[in-house]
């Protein structure tokens, strides 16, 4: 897809979309949204970039290995944050009783482990969308050239 208009508009829009996605992830405990919605927005912005330019340009921004690493790392981070509570003598995935500092309700760094959970889920979902799309497109290219 070699379209100048699409590329210029995409170059303008993508940073704002990613900023909004990060905002939705990090403010999940303050405003509507959270890990799933924000991660989907970030992943959709990367997919949009790879669609408007091409797969190589998208891979240069976020390579396959880093995307896979983020995907596994998000899930592992979520589970490790749950194990912290077990180390402190509470149930799995406990927040307040395990002694996470709750802070002042309404501040960005409040509500203890919910912030970490949201960020981990956001990384996981966003990189999942990216990885799936990259692999689908890449597979189709290889498929077409082999025929």
């Amino acid at each position, binding site marked *: 897809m070699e379209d100048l208009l699409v590329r210029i508009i995409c170059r303008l829009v993508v940073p704002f979309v990613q900023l909004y996605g990060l905002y939705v992830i990090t403010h999940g405990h303050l405003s509507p949204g*959270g890990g799933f919605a924000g991660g989907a927005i970030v992943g959709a912005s990367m997919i949009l970039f790879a669609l408007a330019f091409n797969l190589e340009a998208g891979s240069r921004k976020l390579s396959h290995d880093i995307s896979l690493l983020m995907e596994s790392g998000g899930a592992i981070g979520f589970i490790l944050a749950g194990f912290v509570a077990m180390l402190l003598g509470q149930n799995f995935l406990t*927040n307040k009783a395990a002694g996470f500092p709750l802070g002042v309700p309404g501040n960005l760094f409040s509500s203890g482990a*919910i912030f970490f959970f949201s960020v981990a889920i956001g990384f996981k979902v966003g990189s999942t969308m990216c990885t799936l799309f990259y692999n689908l497109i890449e597979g189709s290219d290889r498929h077409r050239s082999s025929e």
Partner: protein
Amino acid sequence: MEVNSLTAMAILVLASYIFFYLPASRLRGVLVLIMLGIIGYALVATVAEMPTFGASANPPHNEVYQRYLHQAVEDTGAINAIAAIITDYRAFDTLGEVTVLFTAIAAALSNLKAH
């Protein structure tokens, strides 16, 4: 409307199953049409029996939701009650969702990379 919905639907499904094996004819068309009308009437009657949308006497309005709305800020420190529920009260469910995503992409990648 005092219809035992489950019995009525069971009879309807059985009758439709019998109609399915009739030879194709004008009679079968008419019977299927009548059957569809009865099924549609049963569905609409069931929906009409449901409690009013958003009424205060509905089953979800119990002590669980009051507990979540009143104690969420104190228990978790999050002013968004939905985030408090899905990542603190029901965090194990969220872990299940993450596992579902992980399994889905693992299956998709293993299928795509195999070719």
